[in-house]
């Protein structure tokens, strides 16, 4: 029924939303680009004029740049590996009929509802504190020297905290994927002589591949911007300074808006490179 008239009416009616969203995206992007070409130090003279690509060169040549890229990739990669692996296993477990299934499922989802700052603080103070933390008590119980989590194992600590937050998301999506698997396929493969591990490998895992792709894509987008967990735990020390944290430091701690904006542009480029790679590798699972 899409006549010429109704189509143009539809365009007209969609316009406000499209314009709003476009503005929402374009204004900050343009401002970031604008500032990235300026020397702008709010507390030390304000706008000091155009500097061309100076900020871009300074940001990349700074000694903190490559370590920050490294930290970002390690955190994103580590969290993805942990959440997808444990997510698949948990989903398999939760798919089994059991007593109290509803409550268990809600408990599994619960971490997702805890705010990042809160959960990071809880982990830092309740579990990882080298004197009063539960881990410290556990280590002492077995006669071991408590680990100074935040300084000695800073990256693994943050990966652990962030994984804990994102595991429910992965589990939930993967659980729905498992539940949509046709039971007769599993029975058929059982009759075809596939033992449980092979049934998992040849039937269940391929069936879940699309859901795993979705989990990886969505999580990557959010994990590239992890900030609160680092801010309240290590404060960027001990090699946990990610790209987004570095940008924060340049803008707020060094009060250098131009330099931070240049970093922001790099972050956009990095996110896009990773997105293209991911689309190439896993995106074909989204076809058909």
């Amino acid at each position: 029924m899409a006549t010429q008239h109704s189509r143009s009416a539809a365009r007209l009616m969609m316009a406000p939303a499209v314009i709003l969203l476009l503005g929402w995206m374009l204004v900050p992007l343009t401002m970031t680009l604008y500032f990235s070409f300026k020397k702008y130090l709010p507390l030390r003279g304000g706008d000091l004029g155009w500097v061309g690509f100076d900020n871009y060169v300074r940001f990349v040549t700074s000694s903190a740049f490559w370590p920050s890229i490294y930290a970002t990739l390690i955190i994103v990669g580590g969290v993805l590996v942990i959440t997808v692996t444990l997510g698949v296993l948990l989903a398999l477990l939760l798919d089994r009929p059991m007593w109290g299934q509803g409550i268990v499922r809600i408990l599994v989802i619960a971490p997702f509802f805890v705010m990042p700052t809160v959960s990071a603080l809880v982990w830092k103070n309740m579990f990882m504190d080298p004197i009063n933390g539960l881990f410290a008590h556990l280590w002492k119980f077995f006669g071991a020297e408590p680990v100074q989590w935040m300084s000695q194992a800073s990256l693994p600590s943050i990966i652990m905290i962030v994984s804990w937050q994102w595991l429910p998301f992965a589990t939930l999506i993967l659980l729905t994927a498992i539940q949509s698997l046709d039971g007769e396929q599993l029975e058929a493969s059982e009759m075809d002589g596939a033992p449980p591990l092979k049934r998992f490998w040849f039937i269940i895992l391929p069936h879940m591949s699309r859901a795993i792709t979705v989990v990886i894509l969505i999580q990557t987008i959010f994990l590239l911007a992890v900030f609160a967990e680092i801010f309240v735990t290590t404060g960027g020390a001990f090699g946990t300074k990610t790209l987004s944290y570095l940008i924060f430091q340049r803008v707020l701690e060094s009060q250098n808006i131009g330099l931070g904006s240049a970093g922001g542009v790099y972050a956009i480029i990095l996110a896009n490179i990773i997105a293209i790679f991911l689309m190439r590798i896993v995106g074909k699972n989204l076809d058909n």
Partner: protein
Amino acid sequence: MGQISLKQITKSFGDVQVIPPLDLEIKDGEFVVFVGPSGCGKSTLLRLIAGLEDVTSGVIDIDGADATALPPAKRRLAMVFQSYALYPHMSVRKNIAFPLRMAKMDKAEQDRRVTAAASVLNLTDYLDRRPGQLSGGQRQRVAIGRAIVREPAAFLFDEPLSNLDAALRVNMRLEISELHQNLKTTMIYVTHDQVEAMTMADKIVVLQSGVIEQVGSPLELYHTPRNKFVAGFIGSPKMNFMTGAEAAKHDAATIGIRPEHITTSTTDGLWKGVVGVSEHLGSDTFLHVTLEGASEPITVRVDGELPVHHGDTVFLTPDESKIHRFDANDLRIA
């Protein structure tokens, strides 16, 4: 070899016994059809034989060896599911080769068997497609292909044709019968469609509420149904039943007469009635005739050309020798 015998097997889900103690012998090479209304336990029985469900008690022997505790994969049975249960992410070739791959068979032998199965089932041109790109009938054939490459002791079919349209169903019915003629392997086929049962089976097992009502060849069941249930279930259209005075004349609680064993006349006959709906099939016409004083109409088969219409009065005469008599317990009186 594919000889299967069930000895006193039962199956309960919780407190509900869906299959009371049941005995059944299936000979090597037989085409056995389990038929019955939905919920009669025929699929459960098949799944017990397949090993997908565990029997609550009793013994299942396959080729003389106790298979009761064997896992499905070890029973050397192949099953074709109602939904076909093809693996959607694998090509047709990989689907068919899957059981061979699981058995760690030599690659060349795998290829040889897949090619052979594909040519038997006319799938050669589709080997590299995914199941999603095939039609219902082709998917059905892939499922059968996956079953035959294993060269199993017996094939189990769980209502395999119920997802196909009518024309295709008739074709596949013939193809499966043909396959049975060629392979001479035991086949157990579950259906709720008595036409499939009659046309394909060497031996029909009629089930109701988990109980075997009768076992026999299609014609045995047609000519000498053991009770009223089997009589009503086998044959199309259904047998007509009469109680009361008509039945008493034959010393029975109920008498049954098939639509094809009644002669219809517009002038004279034993019973007089009014024609209701008539179903014209071309070769035959099925008339629904309401007899005087009866509430249920009687179905009769007449020649396709007989000129009768809704509301006409006709006379029916049953063939006395073809009347089935049943006692108060619905059992056949010989």
